């Protein structure tokens, strides 16, 4: 009698855990596919054109200060700064703009890594800053900005 109960329990538990793990994997694949169609094709092309297949590491040391909501997409003020000394290049990219590469800057060591600029944004989008260090590492940071009124034609 005990043995029968025991087997019953065993089967139940295995069934449950299998179901659980299956659902887990399913969730993961869903997540993965979502992040795949995240940035638009134009943005990915720009990245490939600029950096080829080089790895871009998200970093907290590149700081981007920008409004969460920009009233006018034609003038979105952003501030880029970093405590790192050895940054040679900065790229400003807007994911959902028709031409994602906004500007690229080359900095000499005489300058602090600090830059304020004003950019145009067509719609709500992530703004991505990619910094290249002098030893050719790529660091990135991004922030989503909501735009009340687009600034790229119409």
């Amino acid at each position, binding site marked *: 009698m005990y043995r029968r109960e025991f087997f019953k329990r065993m089967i139940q538990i295995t069934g449950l855990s299998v179901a659980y793990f299956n659902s887990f994997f399913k969730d993961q694949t869903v997540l993965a596919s979502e992040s795949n169609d995240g940035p638009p094709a134009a943005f990915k092309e720009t990245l490939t054109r600029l950096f080829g297949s080089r790895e871009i590491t998200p970093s907290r040391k590149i700081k981007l200060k920008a409004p969460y909501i920009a009233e006018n997409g034609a003038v979105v003020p952003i501030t880029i700064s970093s405590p790192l000394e050895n940054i040679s290049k900065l790229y400003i990219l807007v994911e959902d703009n*028709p*031409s994602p590469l906004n*500007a690229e800057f080359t900095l000499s060591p005489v*300058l602090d890594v600090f830059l304020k600029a*004003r*950019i*145009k944004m067509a719609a709500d989008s992530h703004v991505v800053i990619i910094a290249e260090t002098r030893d050719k590492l790529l660091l990135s940071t991004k922030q989503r900005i909501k735009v009340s009124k687009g600034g790229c*034609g119409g």
Partner: protein
Amino acid sequence: MAKRSSIKIRSKWLVGKLQIRTLIAHPMDNGRHKDQNGNLIAAHYIEKLTVKLNEQIVFEGTLSGSVSKDPFFTFLLKHAVKGDTITISWEDNQQLKDSLDYSVP
């Protein structure tokens, strides 16, 4: 009267560092806007922005049409002294250009 430069430069000392602000008067048309008659306005934007400190390039920017109209930039110079010359110049995609010298006060 001499034609006013399209470039304005202002500076401010911040704890031994020099903050440079520059405002350039330029339409920065990206070729997507339309005029009143519905015709597209041709792209006209600054492609190259150069900042020199005593004839040495310290800052170079490659801009596109998605930089705002009348571009405004702020940056920080670490080692500037009084009397240094800062030169800011730009070139756009219609081969127009301008340049301005500024002496650090």
